């Protein structure tokens, strides 16, 4: 029953989506607003149908209806309710259903928010969204159908992959990531629509910017959530492994970042329009590439779903998307050519250009590394691997360059540069860098790489602070406000700039956290009997006991470890090792004590069958929580950038066209 209902729902959604897409394109082309309206209604209908299909699937999962193939693959009577519900996205077919749901949600939002916009561009944009939806609907009602009805339903299923049942973050990381990933379809569709209709207008571009920001915010949060999951669940003590699927999420994020930066040049100086639009198209293409990677099994990864025939279908879709978008961009590129010019080589425009260069180069480098095993095998038959050592060597220098730009960029003025002024402004930040390095050296910190990075972070922080201070001062000249009144007003008056600064601050914290935990982490590995202890970086870890804890879906062996520091007891941690029936390798759950300055991370590597001893691996990782905090700031910055700008009076506005000149300098 559930299979039939689900299948009918997805199939009808497919036809409606197809029809809606045709209606939108036809209506837009022939200026038939009734057709376009029909297309819009189709978008809303599709949303309703897919939501219903998801509901049916969740119901089937919770009710343990094993006649539905997906439930038979992924469900189990022993799995707790929370994990049963989130196993909607635990395996391939369900994840496509979930993707379709989010895509239809975005489509419905676009239809509703812009229902007053009768332009051709919007019609085409909705048409593009419906076309993408039709592809995913085709996959989920055809080759990747989760609703296949099994003639002989098993009495119980194997349950989702144990790694996906171990941590509640599994309920957060995929939805966040999908919201970001799928969210890239919206700016793509808007861009395509605007391009198809002619030359994109200014307000259309700001619309694209807003949706790109939404997707970027979710992507950033999703990546951080993924890092957290990897850290907290996988038990290897790390948070990023340059896994192909991790890279596949990083690449659209990098390109969208480049887009957000280059858009600023576009909006102020009316240059680089083609390039900006190419970037957002590239981000979407990379997101489809990422979904292809996860589902085709072409490259091995921790994330891989099982290999299936869906791979070639996704490859076909990827090819079609690439072809169509390249075609449209090429055809329209003459009309988009920039009338702008550059007044000075050393200016903010060129800093943004350099930023784009570095981000795109980083993206291409990550892409090269990710597909290199395939390339090597195709060219020479040799099987080669590409992992963290390669990416560290190759990607980190570019990231350092970007960090440097982050400090220099806000200091540079738009338009004409006054090199003298710029270099003077950079002296204090440089001193800050030197001071930071000296302080750290005095504090006993050693290591050339980390010292340089911390110095760079101090440089960027000081440069940005100086920039903010200059803006504040120039405002206070006019209004004579005290700084605690002027600052909020300053921020409210130009939220995008300060949101950018917030995001940059988040990135700085991220860099500090990553550098510290990578370079200054310590670890120890001992086999302990009950009562024995080991020491690490000032902590004393004593094994207090080993306790078996049978649960409905697994057998958990917990090791209780008492932690004390300089004699004072700090508490206890309980890392565990989980045995799932039917799975050979047990799953380890680390226990982490998070503090602002360092994390204590314990993992059980082996346990005696008679529970007499435990092999414990302990890590002390400094400043890991800065990573999560920094990531949160980045997301916050993105949300802040979405805030509407306070309307300026027209007179003010005209004054600032076309250069948005720097506020008047005041002698300090």
């Amino acid at each position, binding site marked *: 029953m559930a299979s039939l209902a689900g299948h009918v729902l997805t199939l009808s959604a497919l036809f409606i989506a197809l029809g809606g897409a045709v209606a939108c394109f036809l209506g837009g082309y022939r200026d038939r607003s009734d057709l376009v309206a029909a297309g819009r209604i189709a978008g809303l209908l599709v949303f309703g149908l897919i939501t219903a299909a998801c509901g049916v699937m969740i119901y089937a999962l919770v009710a343990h209806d094993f006649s539905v193939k997906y439930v038979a693959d992924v469900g189990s009577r022993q799995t707790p309710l929370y994990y049963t519900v989130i196993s909607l996205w635990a395996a391939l077919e369900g994840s496509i259903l979930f993707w379709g749901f989010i895509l239809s949600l975005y489509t419905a939002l676009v239809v509703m928010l812009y229902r007053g916009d009768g332009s051709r561009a919007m019609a085409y944009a909705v048409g593009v969204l419906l076309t993408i939806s039709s592809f995913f609907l085709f996959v989920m009602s055809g080759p990747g159908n989760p609703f296949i009805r099994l003639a002989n339903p098993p009495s119980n299923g194997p349950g989702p992959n144990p790694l996906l049942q171990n941590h509640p973050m599994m309920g957060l990381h995929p939805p966040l990531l999908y919201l970001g990933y799928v969210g890239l379809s919206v700016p793509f569709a808007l861009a395509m629509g605007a391009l198809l209709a002619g030359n994109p207008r200014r307000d259309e571009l700001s619309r694209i910017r807003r949706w790109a920001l939404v997707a970027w915010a979710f992507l950033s949060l999703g990546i951080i959530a993924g890092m957290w999951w990897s850290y907290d669940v996988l038990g290897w003590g790390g948070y990023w492994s340059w896994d192909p699927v991790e890279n596949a999420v990083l690449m659209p994020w990098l390109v969208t970042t480049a887009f957000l930066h280059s858009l600023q040049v576009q909006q102020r100086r009316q240059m680089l329009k083609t390039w900006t639009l190419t970037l957002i198209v590239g981000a979407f293409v990379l997101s489809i590439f990422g979904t*292809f990677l996860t589902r*085709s099994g*072409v*490259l091995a990864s921790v994330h891989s779903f099982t290999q299936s025939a869906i*791979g*070639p279908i996704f*490859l076909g879709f*990827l*090819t079609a998307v*690439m*072809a169509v978008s*390249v075609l449209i961009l090429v055809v329209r590129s003459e009309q988009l050519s920039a009338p702008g010019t550059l007044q000075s080589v050393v200016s903010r425009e060129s800093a943004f250009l350099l930023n784009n260069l570095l981000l795109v180069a980083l993206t291409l480098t990550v892409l090269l590394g990710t*597909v290199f095993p*395939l*390339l090597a*095998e*195709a060219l020479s038959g040799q*099987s080669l691997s590409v992992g963290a050592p390669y990416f560290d060597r190759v990607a980190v220098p570019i990231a350092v360059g970007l960090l440097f730009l982050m400090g220099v960029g806000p200091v540079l003025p738009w338009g004409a540069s006054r090199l003298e002024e710029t270099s003077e402004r950079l002296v204090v930040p440089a001193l800050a860098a030197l001071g930071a390095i000296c302080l750290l050296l005095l504090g006993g910190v050693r290591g050339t790489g980390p010292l340089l990075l911390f110095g760079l972070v101090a440089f960027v922080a000081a440069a940005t602070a100086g920039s903010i201070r200059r803006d504040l001062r120039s405002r206070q000249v006019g209004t004579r406000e005290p700084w605690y009144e002027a600052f909020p007003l300053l921020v409210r008056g130009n939220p995008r700039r300060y949101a950018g600064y917030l995001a940059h601050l988040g990135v700085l914290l991220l860099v500090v956290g990553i550098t510290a935990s990578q370079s200054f982490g310590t670890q120890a590995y001992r086999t302990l009997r009950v009562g024995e202890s080991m020491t690490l970086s000032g902590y004393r870890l004593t094994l207090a006991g080993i306790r078996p804890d049978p649960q409905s879906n697994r057998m958990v062996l917990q090791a209780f470890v008492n932690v004390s520091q300089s004699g004072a007891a700090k508490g206890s941690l309980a890392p565990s090792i989980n045995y799932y029936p039917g799975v*050979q390798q047990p799953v380890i759950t680390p226990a982490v004590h998070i503090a602002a300055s360092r994390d204590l991370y314990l993992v059980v590597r082996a346990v005696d069958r008679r529970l007499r001893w435990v092999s414990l691996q302990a890590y002390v990782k400094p400043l890991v929580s800065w990573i999560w905090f920094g990531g949160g700031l980045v997301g916050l910055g993105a949300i802040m950038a979405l805030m509407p700008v306070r309307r300026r009076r027209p007179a003010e506005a005209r004054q600032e066209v076309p250069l948005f000149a720097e506020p008047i300098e005041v002698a300090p």
Partner: protein
Amino acid sequence: MLVAFVFLLAYGFGKPAILQTPLLGSTAPSFALRSTSGQVVRLSNLHGHPVVVNFFASWCVSCRADESNLVRVSRRFGSRVRFVGIIFEDSGRAAADFTRQRGGAWPDLVDPGGRTAVAYGVTGIPETFFINSRGVVKAHSVSLSSSALRNGIATILRSS
């Protein structure tokens, strides 16, 4: 360039999945290990005979399914070829139980620390190495099907 990229990805579907061991044609790594019955077996002592080295464990499903092939083949060729089993990531007792059930008259060696498995580049079990009488690895198989075993043995007999 985009087209080349798509071709590359499409190529990924046709990729064969099995990796060949680089030890083929080179001297087999030597070992001196104690068997479950206590005797020490050295590969160097077996020089002059073709040797079949089989990595296995009691928890390996496909070993259980196919070990009968190995037993049959050992009965047929046991006079001309020496058989050696090496236990991979398993307790000696469990492996001894397994071999008792299986039958077969060759020693099963305990590999402390998995060092010999690493020396042979073992990535999974069952994995079988066919070494000729001059100590060179001539064939390698990841399955225990009778044809694979017979082919391997034929190869080492031929080149001995």
